[in-house]
């Protein structure tokens, strides 16, 4: 073994590295906790944890500079450190079984968290009593949906994520007979009727409700209970020239319609939708309070789950701490609205959800064995003296 390789090995299997990584992790977590007041829980996850480095821009410029190792880097190195140390020092010994089990559980936990952070998709399903939904909606991401509603049975949808809108430019798509030109885009904006704002700049919009509405850009909000409402002016251009410029924003209620190329089109900027191969109907939502107070005691939704292939049709009761798991998705009772007639379910797809459970059992057992051995030894030693 060359000295360099040995140096490498010694570095990666050292306990010193473990201690340093754990220490840096604590600082990272503490920093991120403080930053949450300003950035909100989502912003913090992106900036501190789901990244290799924490980036800060140099004041006065937009140049990002790495200032601290991020969650992926620390987690990854810890994982490496753990695995390397175990391979290097591994001995099948009864005395070490506990600690090895614990660390194996820890490895599983780290891997599980990596999988979760990369693969987890969260969305909401907002159900009115008696209403049926085929899709759930993201609560942070928007999409520009262009629908061909000509067919009476179904809609042909082209969904453009907000991130693409933010880039601006022109989009051409095989399903659309026109180009989409993004005239301007605001990540968060308020809309007002134009006659309420006398001095507003002229609107670029020429069609739909846009010409009557004034758009005021707002700062992005990071609060957990608030959503940003983006706005954009979208121009459609056919081979023969412009079709008009529309204003889109989730703050507008109904989709705007137009006819082109012998088909009926609708456009709307809405929360990103995830369609599912099954439908959920809210049969009943109930909300109990403690007597004489507004403190919620329990929420529950009685729903009917009907799959499109006609094989499944059943009633399910979803309530706090008792979600429904179906087709790789989990439905949680998240919230309610409108005098208890609207139930909001959180819909989560997380392929790695079972890993923490396994690792929890492994770590718990491992620690119990390890400290059990310690305690046993200690007691025996004491009673001997």
């Amino acid at each position, binding site marked *: 073994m060359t000295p360099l390789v040995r140096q490498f090995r010694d570095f990666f299997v050292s306990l010193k590295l473990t201690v340093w990584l754990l220490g840096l992790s*604590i600082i990272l977590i*503490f920093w991120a*906790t403080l930053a949450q007041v300003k950035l909100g*829980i989502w912003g913090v996850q992106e900036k501190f944890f789901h990244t290799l480095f924490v980036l800060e821009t140099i004041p006065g410029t937009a140049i990002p500079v790495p200032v601290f190792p991020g969650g992926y880097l620390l987690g990854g190195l810890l994982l490496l450190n753990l695995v390397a140390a175990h391979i290097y020092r591994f001995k099948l010994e009864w005395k070490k079984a506990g600690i090895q089990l614990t660390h194996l559980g820890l490895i599983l936990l780290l891997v599980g968290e990596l999988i979760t952070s990369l693969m987890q998709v969260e969305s909401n399903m907002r159900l009115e009593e008696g209403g049926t939904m085929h899709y759930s909606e993201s609560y942070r991401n928007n999409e520009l949906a262009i629908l061909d509603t000509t067919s009476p049975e179904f809609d042909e949808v082209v969904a453009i994520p907000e991130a693409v809108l933010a880039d601006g430019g022109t989009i051409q798509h095989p399903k659309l007979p026109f180009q989409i030109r993004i005239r301007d885009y605001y990540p968060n904006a308020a809309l007002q009727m134009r006659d309420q704002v006398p001095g507003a700049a002229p609107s670029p919009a020429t069609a739909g409700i846009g010409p009557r509405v004034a758009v005021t850009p707002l700062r992005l909000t990071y609060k957990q209970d608030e959503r940003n409402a983006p706005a954009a002016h979208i121009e459609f251009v056919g081979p023969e020239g412009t079709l008009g410029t529309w204003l889109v924003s989730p703050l507008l209620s109904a989709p705007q319609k137009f006819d082109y190329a012998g088909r009926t089109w609708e456009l709307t900027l809405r929360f990103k939708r995830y369609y599912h191969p099954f439908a959920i109907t809210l049969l009943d939502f109930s909300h109990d309070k403690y007597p004489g107070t507004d403190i919620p005691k329990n929420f529950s939704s009685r729903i009917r789950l009907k799959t499109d292939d006609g094989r499944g049709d059943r009633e399910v009761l979803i309530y706090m701490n008792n979600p429904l798991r179906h087709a790789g998705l989990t439905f949680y009772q998240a919230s309610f609205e409108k005098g208890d007639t609207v139930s909001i379910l959180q819909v989560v797809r997380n392929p790695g959800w079972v890993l923490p459970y396994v690792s929890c059992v492994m770590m718990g057992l491992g620690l119990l064995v390890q400290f059990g051995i310690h305690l046993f030894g200690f007691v025996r030693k004491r009673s001997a003296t």
Partner: protein
Amino acid sequence: MKRWIPLIVLVLAAGWLASTLRPQQNTGEFDLVAFGRLPVLVNGRIKPLDTVARTSLLMMQGRQRVSDPTVAQPFVATPAEWLADVLFNPAKADDYPTFRLSATDSPELLTLMGLTEKETKITYESAVLRTLALADFVPGTRTRFSFNQLAPKLAELDRQAQLASPVDPQLRTPFQKAVMQLRERIMLYQRLKHSVQMPDSAGFLGEIVQFQKNLATGIAAVRARQKGEAHDEAAFKAMLAAAQRYDTMDQLGYLLTIPPAATDTDPTHWQSVGHTLLETFETGDINPNVMAYAALGSSWRERKADQFNEIVRLFGAQFTKRFAPQLAKSDIETRFNAAEPFYKSMQLYAVAFLLAIFSWLKWPEVLGRSAFYLTLLAFIATTAGIATRMWLEDRPPVTNLYSSALFVGWGSVGLCLILEKIYRNAIGSVAAGIIGFVALLIAHHLSLSGDTLEMMRAVLDTNLWLATHVVVVTIGYAATFLAGFLALIYIFRGVLTRSLDRETADGLSRMVYGIVCFATLCSLTGTVLGGIWADQSWGRFWGWDPKENGALMIVLWNAIILHARWGGLVKQRGLMCLAVIGNIITSWSWFGTNMLGVGLHSYGFMDAAFWWLLFFVLTQVAVIALAQLPLEKWRSFRA
């Protein structure tokens, strides 16, 4: 002789504790004890009026006594007597100084409420007291004021509160916070006053008797008017006025005092007096319970003790049959309030701490053993207190920040008792005394925000997770704190005294290591269990919520201590310093995360507590700095 001293201490202290369990005695001719046991439904649970009185006083003025520094005697003997005045004789209660307003909290609020030095400054008659006031031994300024003193400026307060209320609670200035707080306190007081009668009524009993008499003609008049027929205008107006008054009572009344009708099987269907009176329009008869409270009021105002006691007795008797299980709880709760097990334990911990400290200087056997007994007694008393709370709530021990403080103290002391039993060197007793005392002190301050037996919000309403995740994590806190405090003892004894010999030092080191192992086990298991709970109820195992982060930081820190020791990176002193840092991290994740005001877990926002937290952290840093003295400068290790 010396052999007997610890036993004598034990017996005396046990007797003192037992004496708190005897039934409460009335100080005057009114049976206020029985009055305090009357059940009402408020904030979602049936509780005795005694609890209502105590928690209301704590919320309004931070203490249960109603007194003024310049008046020798308290205005009322018990919280229940104060409540009787508020409910039945508000004109008198309006003069009691029960609203806390202090220049240290917000001087602007004093100005807003028109309180000048004339009201706040205390001038004592006696020269002795005046001197003491200068030295701050007795209060030099008044911090509690009566409703009448505040009344002229209530409109101003309302206006300021309206301006402050749209502001995010975390972003409010100290003045805005103080305004909102005072307004809440006054609202609570006003709502109490409207609970069983209209406070402006000259005689409420007379008023409702008159109302009952006029009811038939009144209803006829209203019906006629609705049909557009000729009607008795005066009778109509009287009905209208009465209905408006009772509606106000219903809107404002704080207590649901009227039990459900005998035919109603749901024991939670209690009603306010106002609502019950409005129902009179339908039934035509005033509910006898409303009458009972009104009669209670008139006998209280007219100082007819016999009549008062008789009504309380009869009124209470009707509950014993219908609400036996609820009443059993409410009776125990009254006794529990009066026994004050946590306050008594606090005193015992303080004494035990002092005895144990002195045992290192003199009579180690006698004092050490006495301290151990006292700690044990205090531990038993806290255990009993926590068990009572669990029984009252039907819940695992930790349900809110207050009970977490109780439980952290309990857990640490329990571990200390084990250590003391093994090592018998008074270290366990010293640590138990200080942690027990401080934890209960913190709990006392947390109790000022209201009833500590609150209802659990839906998401927390699961005894399974409360009993596993919350309990295990809290024990993890307790163990991490204990390791830190043991390290403090090591450093203080080592640097400042000659008493840290090699054997003691090694013993302490083993204790800290063992406790850190235990803390790692608990905090890791607890945190992962919390993740599973989160996965069950919110759909994500880990959300980087501040409270979760805090728990994770404790796990990581304990892991660092263990790995640093296994890797030989730290020796004895380093281990102690790391354990002290554990104190900082635990206090942060216990309280600091609640001060951020974000996240799902924040169950309490406390402002003043922030400075205490900072103070605590600074002291810990100072101790670590102290430990950095070269070992040969440590008094114990000097050659």
